[in-house]
């Protein structure tokens, strides 16, 4: 073994640097941890999650899971997490649509559409999100008429500053039975497909296309049979009605949720529009020219040639935008939507458990973001060009 050169051996230096780095990391983390526990102990405070089972004693304006003030802090945080997830999922779906439309519009040959999209992206991208949220909430949602002067749209849908009320459906007694019929009808389609495929393999001659009518008649027959047994409809329409101080019944979109969703969707949509535009423009011009010379129409060129290639470029940056949307949803606190950040803030104020709550919040947002990236990475891997 040659001893003189070990400090010039690149592999040795690499390993040494790694060990030094890990040591520094562990020491820093240890120092920070010791510092926090020491300072807390000096103030007679302890860290722990025992408080989580105590009753929260505060109410939450909207919740997708049952909650009341006597439930625990833990439950209150769950309500906040679900509220965050709802606005994130709906927001991601809508912002994708807005982003793609605006991105394509920016490349439109129509001057007005192109300029309009450019103005949208320019204005939205260059103003802070929290100001936009305030605008949508205080400037738009709360400027709708009061409950008694509600704007009535067909449906009836009511627009008020207390929210947007739309008719909704309610399950009746026959709903479980009907659910079974519908599941059976859907199952029958798969069974038919399986049987027909089997028959095609067995016979040497092609099957008559008339057999395909089975796809229509058998499910319809099952539903008809169900209707004969259970004539009562499975769902009842509930129409919002003015009762007391507010509308009752129907589905309600609160102004806080609407303003947050609108703000997040438009804001993220502007960024996605630019990613879409960049993705499309990154596809070599020759590809489009070749497609046109083969006689494909504009929409065919876009759909079959440009988009599949642009998608591969767009997915990674779009994933970042989805994550931004999820994290930006914490700005809900400015406009009164009870998301995770808002509720966690309340809990931490009522219990004083700052560190514990911040850890819960960070882990929640982290898992939400990691789950989103996981899904997007799976999708990304599926559409990647397989290179040899």
């Amino acid at each position, binding site marked *: 073994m040659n001893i003189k050169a070990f400090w010039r051996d690149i592999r040795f230096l690499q390993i040494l640097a790694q060990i030094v780095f890990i040591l520094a990391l562990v020491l820093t983390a240890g120092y920070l941890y010791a510092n926090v526990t020491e300072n807390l102990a000096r103030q007679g405070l302890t860290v722990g999650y025992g408080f989580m089972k105590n009753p929260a004693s505060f109410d939450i304006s909207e919740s997708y899971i049952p909650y009341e003030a006597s439930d625990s802090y833990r439950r209150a945080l769950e309500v906040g997490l679900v509220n965050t997830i709802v606005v994130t999922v709906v927001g991601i779906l809508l912002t994708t649509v807005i982003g793609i439309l605006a991105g394509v519009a920016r490349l439109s040959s129509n001057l007005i559409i192109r300029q309009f999209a450019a103005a949208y992206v320019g204005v939205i991208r260059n103003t802070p999100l929290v100001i936009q949220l305030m605008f949508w909430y205080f400037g738009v949602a709360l400027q709708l008429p009061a409950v008694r002067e509600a704007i009535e749209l067909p449906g009836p849908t009511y627009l008020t500053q207390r929210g947007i009320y739309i008719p909704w459906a309610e399950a009746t007694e026959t709903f479980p039975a009907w659910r079974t019929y519908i599941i059976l009808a859907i199952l029958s389609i798969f069974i038919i497909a399986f049987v027909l495929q089997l028959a095609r393999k067995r016979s040497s001659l092609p099957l008559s296309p008339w057999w395909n009518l089975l796809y229509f008649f058998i499910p319809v027959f099952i539903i008809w049979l169900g209707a004969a047994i259970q004539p009562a409809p499975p769902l009842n329409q509930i129409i919002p009605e003015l009762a007391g101080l507010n509308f009752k019944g129907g589905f309600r979109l609160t102004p806080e949720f609407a303003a947050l969703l609108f703000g997040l969707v438009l804001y993220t949509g502007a960024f996605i529009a630019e990613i879409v535009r960049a993705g499309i423009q990154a596809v070599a011009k020759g590809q489009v020219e070749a497609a046109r010379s083969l006689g494909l129409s504009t929409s065919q060129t876009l759909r079959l040639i440009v988009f599949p290639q642009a998608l591969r470029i767009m997915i990674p940056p779009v994933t970042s935008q989805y994550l931004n949307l999820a994290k930006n949803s914490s700005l809900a606190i400015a406009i009164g939507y009870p998301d995770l950040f808002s509720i966690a803030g309340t809990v931490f104020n009522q219990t*004083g458990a700052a560190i514990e709550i911040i850890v819960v919040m960070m882990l929640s947002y982290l898992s939400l973001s990691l789950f989103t990236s996981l899904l997007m990475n799976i999708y990304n891997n599926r559409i990647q060009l397989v290179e040899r």
Partner: protein
Amino acid sequence: MLKKLSVFSLFAIASILLAACGAPAPTGDTETVVETVVVTVIVPGDTPTPPPLPAIGGERLQAVLDRGNLICGVHGTFQGFGFVDSAGAWSGFDVDFCRAWAAALFNDADAVEFRGLSAQARFTALQSGEVDVLSRNSTWTWTRDAELGLTFGPVTFYDGQAIMARLEIVSDASAGLAALEGANICVQSGTTTELNLADQFRAAGVSYEPVVFEDQSAAFQAYDEGRCDAITSDRSQLATQGQAVLQNFADHVILDVVMSKEPLAPAVLQGDDKWADAIHWVVYGMIQAEELGITSANVDSFLTSEDPVVRRLLGVEGELGAKLGLSNDFIYRAIKLVGNYGEVYEKNLGPFGLARGQNALWTNGGLMYSPPFR
């Protein structure tokens, strides 16, 4: 598995560092992993490191005296109590107590650095040592005293939670909570108000829907725009903010229902009794001065008084200040430069028409009472 992953990612981080020295650059995939793991590692220590704090008596007092100014946590957007105007000038009832402490400590009422704090950040700011004292209309409660590790001072303002509604919904101030069945009620988050609201309506069996804002101004704005039928807060806040913020205060009425006791008091971190004493006795001195009829205008004439009570209070005789680690004339300074309790009250809350009520001196049937200075 997880352990392996984190060790692997630590190596990956190291290799990123080494990349600059010519090591092969890591692939995109490892980079993603690295990011996530690093975050989890840092979590337990990811709070701002508080400056070294005094533990037992006197260190905070000494630290403040050495620094030469007082850092006071106040409300920034609450007219009458703590408000910073467009010129950056602070005013208000709570703010004037900060000035009185500064006057007592440094003989300079302006030796204060004000920190405008949100309801959510106020106690953390105190716990982390960012502010020396919190004078931000905070209710003295058992939880805050015991669990948050605070020591509250003498109550500077006896308040109670009330509810304000539009006159189109309730006929007059005598309406009970039942009149608000199904109402939307605006409230600020992180306050005792939010908890009392839930308790009171639950006890009365009245259903309602809270609309919770982090910021009191936002809650008032939303109420003014009609988002809520009613707004709840301390009575003093409803009266002052209502007049300052609402478009037409006459369209609203504050119900007679008293929903809670809200004793508002200054707070310091527990464990430093000397510092807490200094804060407390300045407030008591201001109350005592009012009782004795000593004001900022006539305080100098009292220096020649023969009354031993007055002489001790103003530090003409005795060593009361020195025993607290302060100058003997600390009350004199606070009265001279800021005023007695009644003056501070009238100056800040008088314009809003808030009657003294429970906040009158005990000699006038109120609750303001100072232990004797002897």
